[in-house]
């Protein structure tokens, strides 16, 4: 395979915050690859390290077999299109584009020819003498792209280039970018937080979260077969549910058993199940029906209707269909085996280290929790706290620890939250209560279901 860039064991921290952790990734020559993730996932940091504006703490970035680490940005054979264009305000359109060529001492007539050619490519032919500050956002972005590609880089880096444009302009530019990529035949590395943009443009998508690669694949792979609940939730709409693998090709969730196509998850093992809202079908035939539900709400979304239903077993599901069903009506539903995506659970409880303080208290994550253990004071223990044994309190001072709601996942009949404590540790919580991202909460443990064992056992 023809790899143009090969990233190996790349890590980067800012202070004590790990921004990227052990990134391994290769990029094929000529492909359109997108680094996709929410803000703060490390995608821009990764791009800036490829461009040379940041040095990695560890690891290598090989380009055509040569390590780029340590080579300053002006000597790297790649060019960047920046988020806010970064055109030079004191130069006109022509001089902005010719900037790189003049530095390389390209002859004047050659510069003229190349500038004209890229201006034509970005459909800005008559703008040569214009002051860049008089151009609209979309026009400035075209000039920024022209300024980068006129240097004929081997790889073009694009850092959320369309983020500052309005929706209509963004759609047009997406089409044009795709077309430019086809014409130029060079490798594009594209950074975005917009999943739809990533699905539209890319040959390959790299989903990043919290500094780690979650999944690498084609847009269809990523959409149809997300590897974990983060990817499923981030890419498109989805129903993410707790389930149990009954045996190979048979999974139970929302109180029913379904045939599926997944194997190798063991028997009676807890799993996460993802169902896309467009993959739940309505039927009138009794033999096809797998379960029934009551329609709770129905909203017209332009092409389709978006409905929320309560199943006969009390789970909430989102369904998208071309037909509307009246609110309050009972509907028969089924799901095809192909459309059920089974994922290994990333975790089944919070497993935390602790130290026994006395007969009634254990110190965990720096807080003293009232837990009876029966061990000697000073014993190092491992505490397993089920997700539903974590109690979140409105009043910060009522909790043993305090933290912030960091990530929310709706699981059909409850919420699965990631709560980050003030010291930066993560706790996972199942709750029926509604919290918002960023809420500050007090944290306590209910004693039921908590398992305590000696550390080395």
């Amino acid at each position, binding site marked *: 395979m023809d790899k143009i860039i090969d990233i190996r064991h790349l890590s980067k921290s800012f202070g004590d915050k790990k921004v990227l952790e052990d990134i391994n990734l290769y990029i094929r020559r000529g492909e359109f690859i997108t680094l996709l993730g929410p803000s703060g996932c490390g995608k821009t940091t990764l791009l800036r390290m490829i*461009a040379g504006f940041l040095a990695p703490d560890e690891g290598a970035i090989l380009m055509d077999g040569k390590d780029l680490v340590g080579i*300053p940005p002006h000597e790297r054979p790649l060019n960047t299109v920046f988020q806010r264009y*970064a055109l030079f305000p004191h130069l006109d359109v022509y001089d902005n584009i010719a900037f790189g060529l003049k530095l390389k001492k390209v002859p004047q007539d050659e510069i003229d020819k190349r500038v004209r050619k890229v201006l034509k490519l970005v459909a800005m032919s008559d703008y040569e003498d214009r002051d860049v500050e008089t151009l609209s956002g979309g026009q400035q972005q075209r000039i920024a792209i022209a300024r980068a590609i006129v240097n004929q880089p081997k790889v073009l880096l694009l850092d959320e280039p369309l983020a500052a444009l309005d929706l209509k302009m963004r759609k047009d530019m997406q089409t044009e970018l795709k077309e430019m990529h086809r014409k130029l035949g060079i490798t594009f590395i594209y950074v975005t937080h917009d999943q739809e943009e990533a699905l539209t443009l890319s040959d390959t998508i790299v989903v990043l979260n919290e500094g780690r690669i979650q999944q690498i694949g084609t847009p269809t792979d990523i959409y149809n077969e997300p590897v974990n609940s983060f990817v499923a939730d981030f890419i498109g709409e989805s129903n993410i549910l707790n389930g149990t693998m009954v045996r190979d090709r048979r999974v139970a969730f929302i109180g029913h058993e379904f045939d599926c196509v997944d194997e190798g998850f063991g028997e009676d093992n807890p799993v996460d199940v993802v169902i896309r809202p467009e993959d739940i079908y309505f039927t009138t035939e009794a033999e096809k029906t797998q379960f029934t539900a009551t329609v709770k709400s129905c909203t017209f979304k332009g092409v389709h209707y978006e409905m929320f239903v309560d199943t006969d077993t009390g789970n909430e599901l989102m369904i998208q269909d071309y037909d509307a069903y009246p609110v309050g009506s009972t509907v028969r539903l089924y799901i095809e085996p192909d459309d059920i995506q089974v994922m290994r659970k990333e975790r089944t409880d919070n497993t935390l280290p602790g130290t026994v303080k006395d007969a009634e208290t254990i110190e965990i994550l720096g807080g003293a929790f009232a837990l009876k253990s029966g061990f000697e004071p000073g014993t190092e223990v491992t505490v397993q706290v089920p997700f539903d044994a974590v109690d979140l309190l409105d009043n910060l001072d009522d909790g043993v620890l305090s933290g912030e709601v960091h990530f929310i996942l709706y699981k059909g009949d409850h919420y699965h939250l990631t709560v980050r404590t003030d010291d930066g540790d993560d706790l996972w919580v199942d709750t029926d209560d509604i919290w918002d991202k960023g809420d500050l909460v007090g944290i306590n443990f209910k004693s039921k279901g908590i398992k305590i064992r000696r550390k080395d056992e």
Partner: protein
Amino acid sequence: MKKFFAKLYIWVLLVILYAPLVFIAVFSFTESKVLGSWEGFSTTLYHNLLTGQMQGNASLLAAVKNTVLIALAAAFISTLLGTVAAIGIHNLKGRRKKAVTLLNNIPMINPDIITGVSLFLLFVFLHFSQGYLTVILAHITFCTPYVVLSVMPKLQQMNPNIYEAALDLGATPSQALRKVLVPELKPGMVSGFILAFTMSLDDFAVTFFTRGTIGLDTLSTYIYTDARKGGLTPELRPLMTLIFLIILILLVIINVRQDRINKQTVQR
């Protein structure tokens, strides 16, 4: 009625502010030796000043020349130093940035007399023979913070990516500085230069303590000695009027320029 008082207030204020300047300008057109007595309209003092026919003319003209040369040198060097320092401070983060900004601000609020005396002691301690060089060094010391202060806002307004964009397009760091950063920061550097120039121009305390004993005089120290010898040289009156006019014209030019820049920004 309210409007009348508002207008009255502003006029009273303007009169108080400009009366001394008008006073000296008016009395520059009379030959009287003593300031305050009118002996008929005459341009003799201007004539004397411009042709150099007056008592002690050599030292007055030398003082003017020194003042301008020192101000130019100090303003030029502190513009360079201040711009580089501002870029450095801008790239610092968090607490260190705050600390260095504070360190930059302290010399500006420090009384001149303290700056002057401490520089004097420092030069004596280092066995620096005092003269031109020490005065220029001293002026650079108190001018640089003002340049930093006038370049900083330009850096903050600047798109942080344009320096990186230059590097990305193949510019070495020094090329990026010359071809992209300096043109962007030029308005701030120009106003920093002018600020430094005028600060240096009217400094007395620092110059007085750092000029040494070789008889170096700037305008301010010349006037000080002159006044102590008994009465100001009459030719100082037209000189002051001329300096005021030059500064006024400069100020108008700067304001018109700024206006034009602002208009451009609005058009964006």
